[in-house]
């Protein structure tokens, strides 16, 4: 008699713990995205409360059409796999907006998973998302004063007719992201882990691995094209020797590179001002 009671007590504790998490509600949501395609035209916090998906092959699943919007997917999925590898659709899109936050979204199967476009945009925060099986780029962010952090970007690539794919293509501080698996459909392929544009940005603490080179192509773990960027404490790993460069800076008097680890690239780094702490093999 005692053993079942103990078990029930233990399970009751488990139920209580689970219930404590479930007690979090949607009380702070300005509105909900319940179907796709959707357009957000009112500022505030917009939420998902279940998975949503679409088979559209063009346009956007979710368009953010105003400033000061937080899209919190609450770990639900925005799915686009049904559109196939010829899709040009974007998962979450905005252009020339201010202060857009996208968090906790699982975005799958779009040409661009999260795309905050426009050189006039700023103040964006893209964090804690999971992007997988997007066809050309996982996360694309333009403008300035942006931050892209703690995202997991897996298995990017496969867009019809494309030889390049990007895990992150961002004018932003890229912090603590994981890019794992970038490939392309057309050889010679050029998989890019993190492509950092814009001035004065930092790529820090990122993990880049699984860049697949086909044909006479070349992989690039982290590429910097903006002025005076810093590339610090990143790990750029190939599990087998790969043609390409681990870290490509914007000049030896322009990009600071410090504390990075690069493994199995033909060239570990290029065009960097090399500071202490970089290592390669």
């Amino acid at each position, binding site marked *: 008699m005692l053993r*079942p009671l103990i*078990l029930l007590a233990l399970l009751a504790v488990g139920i209580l713990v689970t219930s404590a998490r479930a007690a979090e509600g949607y009380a*702070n949501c*300005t509105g909900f995205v319940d179907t796709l395609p959707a357009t957000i035209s009112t500022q505030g916090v917009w939420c998902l409360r279940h998975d949503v998906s679409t088979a559209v092959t063009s346009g956007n699943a979710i368009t953010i059409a105003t400033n000061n919007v937080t899209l919190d997917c609450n770990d639900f999925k925005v799915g686009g796999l049904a559109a196939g590898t010829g899709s040009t659709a974007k998962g979450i899109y905005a252009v020339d907006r201010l202060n857009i936050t996208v968090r906790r979204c699982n975005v799958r199967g779009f040409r661009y998973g999260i795309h905050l476009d426009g050189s006039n945009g700023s103040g964006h925060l893209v964090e804690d998302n999971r992007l997988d099986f997007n066809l050309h780029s996982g996360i694309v962010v333009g403008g*300035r*004063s942006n931050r892209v952090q703690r995202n997991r970007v897996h298995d990017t690539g496969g867009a019809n007719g494309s030889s390049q794919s990007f895990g992150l293509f961002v004018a932003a501080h890229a912090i603590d992201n994981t890019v794992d698996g970038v490939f392309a459909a057309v050889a010679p392929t050029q998989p890019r882990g993190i492509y950092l544009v814009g001035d*004065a940005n930092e790529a820090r603490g990122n993990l880049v691995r699984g860049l697949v080179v086909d044909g006479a192509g070349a992989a690039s773990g982290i590429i910097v094209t903006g002025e*005076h960027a810093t590339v610090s404490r990143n790990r750029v790993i190939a599990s087998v020797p790969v043609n390409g460069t681990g870290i490509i800076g914007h000049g030896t008097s322009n990009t600071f590179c*410090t504390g990075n680890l690069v493994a199995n690239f033909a060239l570990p780094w290029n065009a960097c001002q090399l500071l202490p702490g970089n290592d390669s093999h």
Partner: protein
Amino acid sequence: MSRLLVLLLLATTGHGVRAAESYANCTGFVDSVPAVITAAGTWCLRHDLASTATSGNAISIQADNVVLDCNGFKLGGLGAGASTNATGIQGGGSIGSGGSQYNVTVRNCTVRGFGTGISIIPGSGNGSGYLVEDNLLDQNRSAGILIGGGRNRVQRNRVINTGGRPGGDSAFGIRASADLIDNIVDGIAGDADQVNFSAYGIDMGGEGYQARGNQVSGLHNKGSGAAFGLLAGGSNVLSHNRIVAPVAVTAGAGICGYQGGCVCIGNTVANFSNPFSTCVNPADNASH
């Protein structure tokens, strides 16, 4: 009995989806401005708020042990115009009143268009224990964040597009006696008609604090004004900060440059003719 146990097990091992923020822990709500918080607890926003007041405080915290959690909502002051002297979120006690607050936290707020975005400055007492985190400060005219007192922490904030007050000859992204961790300050500039303007990315007061992992960029000094990326002194440790000026700066300094005594480790500075000023025991810093 075994079937019941199986069912209970299945219930407890299901995927616990995280829902959005809840108001379950909110002592009360700030639903309109101006607002004054006089009781301890967690005070929450549940929608955007806006003010056109050109003076005073949109939200004033006048109690100890207060958490203001904006839940990602916006506190807007742009309607007051570029000459506003209003403060978005004020706390710490009225200057000269002899009062000081302790343990005030401000988080998850977007504060736009005020004279000062967040200001927690103790009165003549010894206020302390302030935490300002995960906020976005945008287009505030004189300062993004001002923090006084002691034992404070300012972390993971984004302070962008500060300045632009007509007649204003300086602006500060963050001015704080605090540990400053992982903040972004980008864009400090004067009004278009301002001839002389000094841009301060981070001005760090007090002693024994650390500034770590901050990113400062977009400082636009003009005329006889100067640009300071991370200004500090007094035995503070400045490590792994990234300071970049958009064009070559000859007046001012990238890091330290105050009374001296900063320990500077692993910082990078670009486009300052004086990248590291009065650092002691510098190690692994670099500039170009």
